[in-house]
């Protein structure tokens, strides 16, 4: 005889095929946290707009140094600054060159300096900080004392001094490229130290973690551990610091161009335009606000983005 045993129904559980666990990559997490920061989004939009404007500069109706010789009103010929018109959307500068085109071309230089400097400076800083943090000992001491040496130079006076010295030399290549390269080089040389210290600090705290020991046990050499394991895990504070530094370097470039030891005329950068227009306040009170406003918007946007990134990367910053 067969007996039927009543088996109580199991509570319903989704089967493996039906389960949809929401997985998110790290990048997605960062982006979602960033999105919650409204100012950061505005800043990102403004920054992308600036970068786009600088990129399309070659498409501008006027060349960067092109004097408009069709302006015949004697009042605008003696000192420029014709008011906005259909052919000059923002008017002209003191030599009757289109202001909008010049602003766009100047933006290329200012933004290029900002981003390139951070890129190069961060690279130098990461390399030196990694070496100091991983190998420790004498390497650490030497590298950190070098960093201290560079930190002890007052930033702006040193910057002005070196730029002025380099200004004396004449080069046969494209002057603008040479000068921008010089500025980037000098700024990067004076700006790598913070990144190096950050990276070193991160390394020191990460070196005792399990995954490093595991990698060592598996036979990874120093270089592999640094490049594959340690640096990627140290990126969070570097990204935040770097994004904030872009603004600082744009302002530094504006400062030295304002003082006349940055780009040479007729090439314009936002800082040199600011310097020129302050002598012509009598003829146009508004002109000086344009490059100044461009610098302001760009740097504010970068600061907002930096803030947003810091909040978005917060768990990685705090979670040592």
């Amino acid at each position, binding site marked *: 005889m067969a007996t039927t045993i009543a088996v109580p129904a199991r509570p319903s559980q989704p089967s493996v095929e039906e389960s949809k666990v929401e997985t998110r990559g790290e990048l997605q997490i960062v982006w979602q946290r960033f999105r919650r920061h409204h100012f950061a989004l505005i800043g990102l939009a403004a920054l992308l707009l600036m970068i786009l404007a600088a990129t399309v500069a070659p498409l501008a109706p006027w060349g960067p140094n092109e004097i408009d010789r069709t302006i015949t009103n004697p009042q605008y010929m003696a000192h420029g600054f014709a008011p906005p018109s259909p052919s000059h959307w923002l008017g002209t500068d003191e030599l009757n060159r289109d202001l909008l085109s010049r602003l766009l071309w100047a933006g290329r230089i200012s933004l290029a300096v900002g981003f390139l400097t951070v890129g190069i400076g961060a690279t130098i800083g990461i390399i030196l900080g990694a070496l100091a943090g991983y190998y420790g000992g004498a390497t650490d001491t030497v590298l950190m004392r070098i960093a201290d040496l560079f930190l002890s130079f007052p930033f702006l006076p040193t910057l002005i001094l070196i730029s002025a010295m380099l200004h004396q030399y004449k080069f046969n290549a494209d002057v603008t490229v040479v000068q921008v390269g010089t500025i980037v080089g000098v700024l990067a040389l004076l700006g790598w130290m913070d990144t190096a210290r950050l990276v070193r600090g991160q390394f020191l705290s990460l070196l005792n973690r399990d995954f490093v020991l595991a990698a060592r046990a598996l036979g990874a050499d120093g270089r592999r551990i640094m490049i594959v394991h340690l640096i990627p895990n140290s990126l969070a504070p570097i990204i935040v610091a770097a994004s904030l530094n872009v603004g600082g370097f744009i302002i530094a470039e504006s400062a030295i161009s304002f003082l006349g030891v940055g780009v*040479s005329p*007729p090439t314009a950068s936002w800082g040199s335009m600011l310097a*020129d227009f302050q002598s012509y306040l009598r003829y146009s009170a508004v002109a000086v606000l344009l490059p100044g406003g461009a610098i302001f918007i760009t740097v504010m946007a970068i600061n907002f983005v930096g803030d947003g990134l810091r909040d978005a990367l917060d768990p990685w910053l705090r979670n040592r």
Partner: protein
Amino acid sequence: MWLGVRNVIPRRRSSCARLAVTATMCVALFASPGVSVGQSANVPQEVTVNFLTQGEPDSLDPNRASFGYAVDGAVVRNVFETLLRFDENLVPQPAAAESYEVSLDGTTYTFHLRADGRWSDGQPVIASDFEFSWRRLLASKNQYAPLFAAAGITGVSAPDDLTFVVQVKQPSGALPDLAALWMAAPLRPDTVTANPDTWATDPATYLGNGPFMLSEWVHGDHLTLVPNPYYTAHLGWPLPTLAKVTVLMETNPEAAYAAYTSASNAGPDWILVPDQEVNSVLNDASLTAESRQYNELTTFWLAMNNARPPLNNTLARRAISKAIDRAALVRDLATGVSIPTTSVIPPGMPGFVSGLGHDLDFDPAGAKALLSQAGFSTASPLTFRYTDTPSDLRRAQWFQDQLSSTLGLTVQLATSGDYDLTFGGWSADYPDPQDWLGLLFGCKAPFNTLTFCDPAFDQLVARADTTSGADRSGLYAQAQTQLMQDVPVAPLFNRGRLVLIKPWVDSLKLSPFDDCPGSLFLDEVRILPH
């Protein structure tokens, strides 16, 4: 050269005629209050002028003149009277000296002083006053001393009270011009040696023999000139009509302009219009009616480095000169009151040759042809030196753009160091070609900064410098033609100036050689009723 004597004795009206005139004046005064027949009679002959545009004078001592404070000459020239004085054509005429002779070999100049010259304290003007001053000038390290030395002055002497003798190494056609400069004014040995440092700063000791004298000096604010009571009309030079001249020291040209155009009439009675305001004056009908234009004895040019490639080639320099659109330059940079030119010597002075250098004028196609003929490679950049001021920077960028658009040249700007091109110019120290040609472009000239050297030109100039008389101008014209063929500089424009004059200022003569507008003939100015 004027070697004769001019004596004009003012006619005196008879007493009857004088009574009639006075009666008519009285009738006219009471009959029609708005109109006055004897115009100077009831209008205070006082003017306010802003001559000292560089502020408190560096020094009003004639022997201590400096290039930077040339405006001080406007005051000195009216307080002192030199041996000779420039007339309207800038030819030196007898003034303190009633005549002069040149020896046959041209090395001795003998000036005969007039007997009625008086200092403002009544003392007669004697030859040793000139001797003292000229010795002092030649011995000083003053900036103008090289000019006098270049004329070859070897010695001065005063054989008697009314004779002053100047010895020169070789014949010098420019000596009369030098004798008319305000640095060559006579000085009182007793006052100057008694107060060596302060005689020129205190009206009590600042004695002069000119039409005016200093009555008051409020340091840093203004000074006041009144007629010299002991000055007499002579040789065609009149007694000053003005009874008081207030000389302001406003350094800001915009402030002077604002004071002139303000509704109250307390500001200057005539001013030099600052460059930035020229267009607003020309656009305003009432201001244009009050304005007058004149060109200074100043030429601006594009100076080129003649010593190093690529501009050591004459064809290349000529190409650059032909690449500049002078009309556009004047319009864009010099506010339209200046006059384009292609020759070094400016119009209005002896030695100017009209039409000289016309082959250096704007011609883009010709410029390109010359450039390729010279074998010039447009790849290597030229350096343009400028001084670090906004207007200079603007001008430098203009040239940069002009040369790149006409000739495709790359021009880099620099504020120091070696240069290929720079903006320069020269202003006449005295209205004679010797001041322009030999001193600037001679191989060993003191003011030659261009490293230009042409022996053929030097020879022509040397001959012209040592000739006096009618041949001089022909020789100088030859020298200038040679110079324009060598093109050491590309002449651009002669500076023009705009002067605004109140309608009640009469008989104001403007001269290209004025230190400040109207300073050369201040003693002829009159004020009309207003």
